[in-house]
């Protein structure tokens, strides 16, 4: 398993936001994380990304328990988070954004040609055809294109796990489709993807597995091929569905 969370707990003062959460994600798969507002999705992401310290349980990367005490640790382990409000610089162009902070140099100057070529190769490996001019400023791009740049950054930097927090929330229908196809392609290229979304259509379109959080506890982790929409809705709203979910024997653990 690329990422394995075991018995993860997180408290803010007296409030237990995450309680005994188990989740594992393998390379090459998209795991969707769903749950109502306040179920703990964002907190879970921030624990993995090193923004919050965890209060209990462990995080393993490649079967090794790791202490992630900051975003730098997470990045060093190949974990890249793409947040809702994309951290892109409007005044820089596509290539400059992709390499921001990790520019390639040749002698004393930037190796612009090499960076542009690598950027073009990365985008074409993801079958991105919507961005024609790599030298246009990011400010001139549409929401979908900006999201594409932010996601492509993860591939370029050889990340192994990409966490996407509501990447399609602010996008139109056509742009959402492009981003969904991009997410699927990331996993098909061997990355692990943790995909957080409110939209069940988007979840079903790309997910291999669906993990449902309910009030800070993992209600169930389902294979997307076996799941139905009504099951997932029940898990989100009540934490259980038939024999699945909290209170059932398996207690949501993946068997």
């Amino acid at each position, binding site marked *: 398993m690329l990422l394995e969370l075991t018995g993860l707990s997180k408290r803010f003062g007296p409030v237990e936001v995450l309680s005994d959460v188990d989740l594992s994600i393998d390379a090459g798969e998209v795991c969707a994380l769903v749950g109502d507002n306040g179920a703990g999705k964002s907190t879970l992401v921030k624990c993995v990304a090193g923004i919050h310290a965890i209060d209990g349980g462990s995080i393993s990367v490649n079967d090794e328990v790791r202490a992630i005490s900051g975003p730098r640790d997470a990045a060093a382990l190949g974990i890249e988070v793409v947040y809702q409000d994309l951290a892109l610089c409007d005044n820089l162009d596509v290539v400059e954004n992709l390499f921001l902070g990790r520019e390639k140099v040749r002698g004393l100057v930037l190796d612009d040609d090499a960076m542009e070529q690598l950027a073009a190769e990365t985008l074409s490996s993801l079958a991105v055809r919507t961005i024609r001019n790599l030298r246009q400023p990011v400010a001139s791009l549409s929401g979908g294109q900006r999201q594409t740049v932010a996601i492509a950054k993860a591939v370029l930097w050889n990340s192994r796990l990409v966490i996407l927090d509501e990447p399609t929330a602010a996008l139109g229908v056509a742009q959402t489709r492009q981003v969904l196809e991009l997410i699927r392609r990331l996993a098909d290229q061997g990355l692990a993807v943790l995909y957080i979304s409110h939209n069940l259509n988007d979840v079903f379109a790309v997910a291999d597995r669906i993990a449902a959080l309910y009030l800070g506890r993992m209600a169930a982790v389902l294979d997307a091929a*076996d799941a139905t929409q009504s099951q997932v809705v029940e898990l989100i709203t009540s934490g259980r569905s038939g024999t699945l979910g909290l209170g059932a024997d398996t207690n949501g653990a993946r068997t």
Partner: protein
Amino acid sequence: MARPGTEELRRRNRAALLEQLHRHGPQTRAELTEALGLNRSTIATIATDLAESGHIQETTGRSTGSAGRPSTLVECVPKAESVAAVEIRADRVRFALFGLGGEVLERAESPLLTGVEGPAAAEAAAALVGGSGAEAVAAVPGLVDAGAVAHSTELGWTGRDVAADLAAATSREWRVVDTATAAAVGEWSRGDAHDATRLLYLHGGRGLTAGLVVEGRAQRGGSIQLGHIVVEPGGLACACGLRGCLEAEMEAFGYAEDIESATAAAGMGDAAARDGLRRSGEDLGRALGAVVTATGPDEILFGGWLRELYLSAAAPVRSALAETTLPHLRSRLRLRTPVLGEEGPLIGAAETGFAALIDRMR
């Protein structure tokens, strides 16, 4: 068993090398040696041979980044062999001439009148194609078997021998495949679906068809009339004479005309559009359940306007599919969208022609 003669072996090796270059692009001699499992000197002999016949050329190509002389690349000469591919649609005929290696050498299209008959469509194709290409392949939407179109909702044809129509118009031989199968071949050979052993491509045009290819090759009987699977017994009347066909229940014609506004309206919260999309998704999932159970594919591609429908209604599609298929069939099933888009059928038709052409060289 007699061993194959030297001449025959040589011919086979030539075909294998050409196929390797055609499919995987320019390579060094070392890479070819590795990929084909042949001796270095054998590769050298065949390469010289193919260079003399004008099929391949050697270029001083990419630098490896390390020091030293850049390695020589072997590549096919696109113009050495070409295949004419035609896609017939309800409103137009599209033509592209593909060279060895998959490069497009020429491209043209001409409009068709709605309700056009077979011979007239063949004339339009003939005007575009002329005598170009060593092979000519046509992709036709519908149920196709052995060159004949048994039924096509999109074109309104029944029992039309399209291969004969085309042959009469051009006085040359044609291969005819259905559009979905052609697109499946295209996605397998030049798209992202190379890992699929049994690849099912769903084509959304004015009708719904599907094509199954095994290891990238079209199969007889692989053309499937997805749109005429009955999902609602006694339901809406379909143009084919049955009731409750998928095409009729989904009102596929409306989606074919304007999928964008239907999905956009649903995306913005229009209740009627949402409901329509959900029901269409469920119907599609149910019909797919039957197809998956019958054919056992390991990958399904949603092509044409079904791409937009799937990405906007994946939850009902997959829910219905989960309820109508056996666990061992659905657990290894990948659902994807095509990467070649509109070009898929033409590319696949051309690849069908190249496969025949290379087979003939063996």
